[in-house]
């Protein structure tokens, strides 16, 4: 069972990673990062069945932090949208990547 859950978590994490690398819309990239975090949550919950309660505790912290991160991140995306009228990361070229 554990290996199935970890495999699913790894697959979700890789999908998230690929999304960050391939997609160019800032909001989609942000959603892919959230997908990564939730893949990790799945791994924590699955592992905590075998290793004790710490993993489940960790999940609560990850969710709280993800919410805080979303608040700041979306604010940053809005602030850049006001300058460029787009959220396509390829259009932000004042600084070289």
């Amino acid at each position: 069972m554990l290996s199935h859950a970890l495999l699913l978590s790894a697959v979700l994490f890789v999908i998230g990673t690929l999304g960050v690398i391939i997609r160019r819309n800032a909001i989609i990239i942000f959603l892919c990062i959230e997908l990564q975090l939730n893949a990790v949550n799945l791994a924590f919950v699955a592992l905590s069945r075998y290793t004790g309660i710490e993993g489940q505790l960790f999940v609560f912290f990850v969710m709280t932090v993800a919410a805080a991160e979303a608040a700041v991140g979306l604010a940053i995306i809005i602030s850049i949208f006001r300058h460029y009228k787009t959220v396509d990361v390829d259009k932000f070229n004042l600084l070289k990547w």
Partner: protein
Amino acid sequence: MILDYSSSFHYVLALLPEVVLSCWGMLVLIMGVARRREPGHGQELGWMSLAGLGLAAVANGWLYWGVSEAGAAAMIAVDRFRLFANWVFILGAALSIVISLSYVTRQKLQAGEYYSLILFATIGMMFMGAARDLMIIFLGLELMSIGVYALVGFNRRDRRSAEAGLKYFLLGAFATGFLLFGIALVYGGAGSTNIHSIAGAIQSGNAANVLMVPGVALLAIGFGFKVALVPFHMWTPDVYDGAPTPVTAFMAAAVKTAAFVAFLRVFVVGLAGVYDQWWTVLWSLAAITMVAGNVVAVAQSSVKRMLAYSSIAHGGYLAVAVIAANDTATAALLFYLLVYTVMNIGAFAIVITVSDQSESNHRIEDYAGFGWRRPALGVFMTVFLLSLAGFPGTAGFIAKYQLLLGAAEAQLWVLAVVLVLTTVVSYWYYLRVAWFMWMREGDETSEAVAAAADPPLATHVVLVLCVGLILLGGIFPGAVLDLAIGSAEGLRGVMAGATATLAP
């Protein structure tokens, strides 16, 4: 006094600097809202934040000299390694705030939010330094990062600041994902998130390798992003370039310090048993970072961007201390981080002065003839540059020398040679700025720049303090160095295992 956690009040005492600073940060935030219409409130809030940092430093001193802990099981370490690092964070935050004072007013930034974000990010750093548990490291890292994301994009009127904020946020959150997945796998492999329990599980052979190996690799990637090791550095130049300059100074000094302190504790204490598996990876990362950081810095035409690449190169030097994994190297890391904070923020204070408290005049040509028109500032900048380059007589030299001692003790000869050779390369781009300041005739723009460069008294005080510390550390390093060596001993017990496996 001995903290044994028999009463819950001991937890408050163990976290006293953090508690003081948290309350103070909220107070600054509330004051910022209450007094936002009064002219001159920005300066007051800045001084108020400095007072809070002073209180936290005093609390930290009490913990350093007056308190010891019983056992090493608690999630929060009360060892001198943490407390020395705390002083570096507090110093970095305080110097950044002083050089922000006139910048914030000039750029019309919201002072209450600005200063309280710096304080909250500092608390996150303190948690990273204190963490004996991967959970606390994660929380501290996020507390720091979320604050700094907002600080980087703080100047909403400036396109470049917004762009830097977005880049830092996306890549920082991406890196957090890797770090977190690494934590999950290590937790699964070792059965605990406590760093000492992980070390114990590895030593007794109870750790599942199939989870540990990818877990450690992902942790290395996550920390590599945070401390900007090549090839995970691509965000650094853009973000340092676009962020408001005092924030850049804060990031280059304090954020890097926090990431390295946590990096060292996790890898050298927690993962000591699998040293054989991670040291080659970090070895190559450190070597590439030193070479690439220094070589690319040579090609930069903007002083701010040059300092960004220089901070990548310094990250490479510091990674050598993590790989060396012995007491000498740990003490060298602490000393280096202190010195680096002082000289880096000093250099950025001059950059802010030259750019006239805004975001212009970062080109190296704008420094032409600056030394002759502003002799005091020119001399200060030259001292900072020489110290960054590691010139004998400055604290930067002693710090590099200590790093080399640590590397030699661990018999990392190739890394030591790379460190010395890349240092020689770094002389070129540091001294080029000095050459422009003293040897080049200024044109009209640079003369106007020099004429307008008139830093406020507070910046002068910071500059004199930084120069004094650098020369003191370079000529009489004894006292500070002894403090760093004494602070590194907190990690000795666990590190004995690491050095035993290290011998070939």
